[in-house]
């Protein structure tokens, strides 16, 4: 669950907006470059964004019975890189707020930072690192999706602890990490498994596309 409308005080809303807008602006600049070189990639980007949105509105079968959904940011980051994913995540978050009452407008900046920037960046680094180390891309994508999902919630805990530092920042952080991150571990594993299943089928049916996007491990390309 994203941070909801009105949950953060005004100061923190502004701080997260400023940080996020800088990164998203860089992402837009990157997308512009991609689209100028390759005009037909615009439709691909749009459809992938829609895919991310759909993915986040699907319910993940979860052990604890709580309702949760995959973030989809791990897969996005492995396919398109973190900057582009940040832009797509921004649009996804706006749609989630306006179509599903999920997240909000004032907390948009904070949510972009956790789901659109920290999560994809970690996922991308993990994925690139593991594939560079000659580990099969299937294993790499599991860890990318798992950590991308988990770190999204770790980032959320940090944001909440900054906003409510009581009695101390450390104590608040531990408390928020316990609720958000620890309960998220089984769900993150679920997202990892789901992403592996998706990845396997993509590798079986569209290996050329993955290769073109530069998303395969060097030894598999």
């Amino acid at each position, binding site marked *: 669950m994203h941070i909801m409308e*009105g949950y953060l*005080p005004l100061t923190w809303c502004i701080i997260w907006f400023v940080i996020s807008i800088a990164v998203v602006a860089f992402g837009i600049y990157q997308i512009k470059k991609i*689209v100028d070189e390759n005009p037909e990639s*615009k439709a691909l980007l749009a459809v992938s964004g*829609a895919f991310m949105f759909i993915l986040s509105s699907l319910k993940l079968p979860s052990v604890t019975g709580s309702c949760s959904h995959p973030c989809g940011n791990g897969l996005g980051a492995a396919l398109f890189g973190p900057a582009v994913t940040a832009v797509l995540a921004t649009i996804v978050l706006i749609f989630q707020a306006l179509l599903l*009452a999920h997240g909000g*407008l004032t907390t948009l900046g904070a949510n972009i930072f956790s789901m659109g920037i920290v999560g994809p960046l970690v996922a991308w680094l993990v994925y690139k690192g593991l594939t560079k180390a000659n580990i099969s891309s299937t294993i790499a994508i599991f860890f990318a999706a798992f950590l991308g999902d988990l770190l999204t919630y770790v980032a959320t805990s940090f944001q909440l602890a900054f906003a409510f530092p009581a009695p101390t920042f450390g104590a608040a952080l531990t408390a928020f990490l316990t609720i958000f991150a620890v309960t998220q571990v089984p769900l993150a594993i679920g997202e990892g*498994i789901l992403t592996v299943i998706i990845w396997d089928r993509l590798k079986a049916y569209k290996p050329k596309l993955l290769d073109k996007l530069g998303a395969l491990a060097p030894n598999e390309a």
Partner: protein
Amino acid sequence: MKFDMDYIAHHNALTETNPYFKLFLTIIILIVTLALDNLYFDVFVFIVMSIVILAIAKINYKSYLKFLSLPMAFLVITCFFLMFFFGKGDVIYETGIWGIVVTTDSWHYAVYTFMRVMGCLPCLGFLALTTPIAKILNCLRTLKVPKILIEIALLMYNTIFIFLNEIDTMQKAQETRLGYHSYWSSFKSLGALVSTIFLRSLDKSETLQFALDSRGYSGDLPVYEPRKKEN
């Protein structure tokens, strides 16, 4: 499917109202609510916006309650959490279990956060329930938000509804074959579903690109803006 909010946004008494007005009103009220952080003002905003949504926009009260229910459930849980596990200061209530207490500080946090969200939610509801997304995007475009962002968002918005229909069909097909029978099989079915949609979406994106190209798409998606109805 579950996108009732989109339907409501297109069918209410305020759909045709100037979207700039609605967008700016929402943003200004949100900022004022956050900046004042005043309990009475929060209640005031909650009541006023609810009246606007229910009486002026004539939105069914059931839909409005449904809109509020999910965030509210989450809000109550997190505020309880804030109340019992945070803050220092004078103890005002002891639960007697594991030394968990409510202090003046934590009470303050919980109440203020709760009321702030209560004030802000109807504002979001006002925008989301009365303004179709295409109109909001059109507003943003004239406000100099980068064109490429708006275009991708518009294309995305169209694609989402195509996907929803396909997912519905596929999920029904999987269910009739006991695809969601056990825990592991639901994982496999969901994986198959999502990867099939991804593969379909690639084909879709190609078709979309051809369709756009064949109509002379040059990076601009003109949107038809109907003139205001004359009474």
